[in-house]
Structures are given as C-alpha cells and as structure tokens.
C-alpha cells in the first residue's frame, strides 16, 4: 500500500502580502526565427496562471537573432507587451550572452514570475539569472496552478520517484516547464510591437563560441523525441542465447530493422551502454544519450516497448512519463511483472522482434 501523501508542511515564513504578479514568458527562437512547441507550452502554462491570478500581467520576452516573426506568430496571446533582445550574438546558445539577455528582459519587464520552456538552452542559464536577480528557480516543472491566490508548482524528486507541490515567497521566481508536459497554446498570429532591450556585452561574454552541432546522420539518428513509441533494449540482447552463443550482429539487425519500420525512438538500459567500457560486445549505435533511467533520460512517449531488460527500479524511473507500457522478457519475475508494465510477454525477444519486423514490413497484422 502506498503511504499517504505528506500534506500541510508548514511554510517556514509567513505568506507575503499579495503580489500583483507580472508573469514573463521567456523564449528563444529556433533556427529560422520560429518558436518551438516547447515555447508555446510555456506560454500556455503562463496564460493559464495569468487567467487565474486577478490583477496579474502577462508579458513576453524573446531572444534570438531576430524575434519579430516569432512575436508575430503569437500576437493573439493575452500578453500586453513584448520585449526582445536581438542580434547575431544572441543567435548562439551560450551562457554568458543568454544570461545577460534574460537578465535585461526580466529587469525591463519587472517580472515577478518568469516562465520558460526547460530547453537545454534555458536550463543552462535560468538558475544563474535567478541568482543574479535575487530570485529562485524551479526546474523540470510539470504543472503550475493557482490556489488561494498563490502559485504552486509540481515537480518530481529523486529521479521521478515522488512528486512534490511547492510554493515560494521569493521573487522573481523562475519556473522552467518541462517540454511535453503542457498543451501548446494555440493563440494565433498577428502583428506584435516588440520593445527592444539593449544589452551591452563585454569581451568577457564572448570567450565561448558555439562552433557547431554534432549529430548522427539522419538515417542513423535513433533518438526521436516526437516518436509515439519508445523502444528500449536491455543487456539481454548481447548475452548468450539458448544455443550458448551471443548473437550481437543479429541483435543489431533486428533492433535497427524495428526502428526503421516503426520509427520508434531508441532507449537503453545503463547496463547495455556500459558494456563498451567493460570490453564486451556492444551494439555500436547505442550511446549514453540513449540511456533511460536514473542516470539517463526520462523521455515522454505515448507507448513504450521494453525488450531484454529486467525493468529494475533505476531504469524504470525513466519510464515515468511513458503512457502504455509493454515488455518482452524471458523472466516472469522480472521488474516489469511488478506493476511496472501493462503487459509482460514471457518470450524470446529475438524471435518476437524478428516476426514483428516481418509484419511491419509487410504492412499486415
């Protein structure tokens, strides 16, 4: 039986006077000047808070080489003002310049609550900006709400093992919204008047230069955040099979064949990606970037299929945001059987996936 949730933990400080919040949505443009879906999710969360907080103001701050088209794309949102920091220096995802830009916008907007998508770019910067402005930051937030005139946020602790709801008295309060956790706003386009905020950069801000992006070739990219299905491979794929031999080349062919047919995103247990460091046979297309779990990613997909993985707790905490879950394993007592999967098939994954690939290739079920 699960324990009762802890509730009513007393605040350590009396509630402050009611604040008329100025909610700033902070977003950066993508290549090409558009806003990512995650930015629209943050805007949706901010607009919802704004609607629930009487007397609050909603403003938008945008950073990028050019932000006008991004501002125009959300011009119909309830924001009363748009701020922008633009220029070639702000096209790069770089701590020093991003922090300076965010700080300038927060000051110009006199923001008390700053909501931003927890992209890698903002995650690098926002806690530091909160520190500069004497505020606080909460990251990986999966929900924000208003109760009794106070904002509260939901986030997970101990690598998605328990969920907490907390409030803060400090301002400005930076809230990083986990991408995929909110509905994107559907506010329409128009023409937005953007107030440009000047940022004076020193040479010290430019000691770092972004020189590129390293990624696998398009057909070799196995991490697909927008995929419906997460396909997880465990160390069992490289272990000795019933004939007493390992079948790593066959495993590689089956896994890549499945990814090609299903367009799933590939995840892995830590034990499988660690094998390379231990001198064992490895699946060459797997890296720590594929790792799901305690020391890996916590991806969001509608469905997840695990194969040859025991489903132990350090791995399955990474499945927190996977909807429907199925697993194929030879061990009926594996972790998946203990309430972690909806369906556990006791079977040889080599045989099952070979047949799945055949069916997917033939387009028949």
């Amino acid at each position, binding site marked *: 039986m699960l324990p009762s949730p802890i509730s009513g933990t007393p605040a350590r400080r009396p509630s402050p006077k009611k604040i008329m919040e100025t909610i700033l949505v902070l977003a950066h443009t993508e290549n090409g000047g558009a806003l990512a879906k995650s930015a629209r999710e943050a805007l949706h969360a901010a607009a919802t808070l704004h609607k629930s907080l009487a007397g609050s103001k909603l403003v938008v701050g945008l950073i990028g080489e050019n932000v006008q088209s991004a501002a125009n794309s959300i011009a119909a949102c309830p924001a009363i003002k748009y701020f922008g920091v633009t220029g070639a220096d702000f096209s790069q995802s770089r701590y020093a310049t991003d922090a300076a830009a965010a700080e300038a916008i927060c000051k110009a907007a006199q923001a008390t609550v700053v909501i931003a998508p927890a992209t*890698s770019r903002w995650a690098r910067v926002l806690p530091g900006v909160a520190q500069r402005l004497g505020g606080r930051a909460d990251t990986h937030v999966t929900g924000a709400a208003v109760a009794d005139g106070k904002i509260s946020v939901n986030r997970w602790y101990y690598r998605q093992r*328990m969920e907490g709801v907390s409030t803060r008295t400090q301002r400005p309060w930076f809230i990083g919204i986990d991408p995929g956790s909110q509905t994107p706003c559907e506010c329409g386009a128009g023409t937005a008047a953007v107030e440009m905020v000047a940022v004076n950069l020193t040479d010290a801000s430019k000691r770092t230069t972004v*020189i590129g992006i390293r*990624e696998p070739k398009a057909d070799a990219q196995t991490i697909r955040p927008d995929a419906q299905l997460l396909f997880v491979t465990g160390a069992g794929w490289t272990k000795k099979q019933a004939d007493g031999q390992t079948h790593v080349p066959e495993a590689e062919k089956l896994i890549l064949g499945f990814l090609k047919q299903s367009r799933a995103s590939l995840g892995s247990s830590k034990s499988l990606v660690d094998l390379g460091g231990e001198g064992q046979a490895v699946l060459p297309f797997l890296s720590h970037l594929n790792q799901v779990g305690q020391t890996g990613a916590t991806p969001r997909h509608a469905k997840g299929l695990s194969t040859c993985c025991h489903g132990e707790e350090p791995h399955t905490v990474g499945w927190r945001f996977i909807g429907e879950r199925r697993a194929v394993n030879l061990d009926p007592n594996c972790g998946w059987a203990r309430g972690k999967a909806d369906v556990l098939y006791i079977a040889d994954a080599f045989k099952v996936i070979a047949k799945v690939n055949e069916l997917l290739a033939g387009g028949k079920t």
Partner: protein
Amino acid sequence: MSTAYQIVVCGSIVPDPLQTLEPVASPTGPALKNEMMLPAVLDPWAGHALYEAANLAKNAPGTKVWLVSLGPKAKLQQVMMTVAQKVPFELVALDGSASGFTDATETAAALAEAITAIPGLDKSKLLVFGGWESASRGAGATMQIVGERLGIVDQFQGVDQLTVNADGSLEILERIEGGKHQVSKCAGAPALLGWATGNLPEPKNNPQVGMVNMRTVMPALQKAKPTKLAGEGLAFASVALPKQLRETQIVKDKSPDDIAKEIVEWIKK
C-alpha cells in the same frame, strides 16, 4: 604546452538507487523515511565529473582536484571509504543535509563559500565540475548558481566531453535536444562544467589511492563546517509517491508469432 588546472568538483551523496524511497513529513519539511539508515552512494553524475576531473589531472601535470561535498558527516564518511579508492582528490566537507528537498540556492551558496575558502585557489586556473543534475533534487540548478557566485560566466551543462586544445582553449560537447551535442570552444579557465555521463568507465578501486586520499579525507570530515539549509521562502504543500502501479498482465503461453501480431496491433492502434 599543458596547463595545470585547479579542478573543484561539487558532488554530494544520494540514496542507493536500488533502495525503495518513501517520503515522510519532518519538522523541517519533507524527508525520506529512515533517511539516515539508507545506504548512500556518490551522486552518479557528480561521480562522472570526479572521474573526468581525475582523468584531466592525469593528463595535465600539476593539476589538483578537490571534491567539495555537502552531506551528513557520518554518511559522507561511509561513502568516502569507497570513493576515495577511485581517484586522487582532496576532500572539502560540509556537514549538512543532502536531501532532495533542500533549496538549490542555499546549497549553492554553501558550496561557493567553501570553494572560495580553498587556500591558494587561482581563478585563472579554475575549472568547477559537478553533475548537471543530482539524483535527489534533480534540478540542474546548483552548479549554475555556484558559477554565478564565483563570477564564472563560461558555463556548460550536460557535458559529455572536454578536450583541451594545444592553445589551451577548451572544446566542450554539451547534450542538447534530440540526441545531439552542441560543440563549443571556450578560451580557457575559468569555466564551469556540469557533467552528464562523459566517456569514462568507473575507475576500479585502488587501495593505494585510497590510503593517500584518506590522509586528507578524515581530517576534512572532522573539521566539516556545520551547514544549515533553512529552506527560506520554500513551502511544500505535498510530496507523494505516484499512484500508478499497474495491473501487469503476464502472457506466458503465446507463441512468438502471436505475441508479434499482438504487439504490431498495439503499435498501430
């Protein structure tokens, strides 16, 4: 010409990931049931940061590594018995809570103060390492605030690789969305790197390294400064375990062909 760095690694302890964790209410806010009894390990990503620091030190003669760790003294001592056998470092210990429910800003303030107090620290040689997120709070916020407090604006998070170029510049690979890495070039120290997994395996225990480390670890633990994290302004309305334990259907008697058919139907649904 190789540069000698001063590498300060921030890293604390977390409950062993195999342990079952359960939140309880305490007078100071949420805590874990039997928290002091739970076996602890070095925070995994901070561990990677420590191993990367040691590897860099091995290749850059004259480099020294410190491990600044905030946690309950008794638990730190237990964990250091193992960690100290891995790689050479000097411990700077702070005696306080390592709970995931503490505030990143307060933790960072204590860490930054401890770093600043390290004798002979030369900022022009300083590299601050740590895990990009902890396995407790998992905020990915502490390191950035430490950097701000130390005046370091060349910061990198989710780092998987650091290469020191011949001219002393640093080439850094950071994780970004979609399984990609951003490649940046930084002029050199000072810089702050929040490490992800990196590329190094966990070093094997080396009792000789352990004996050398323990000469400084025990005195550091004895003089660990008591550090209070008050959680000023932060209040928890609730902390709860997820209620989504699933009713697992275990399918034992189907052929691979039938299972495959069922899986394909499910994928396409």
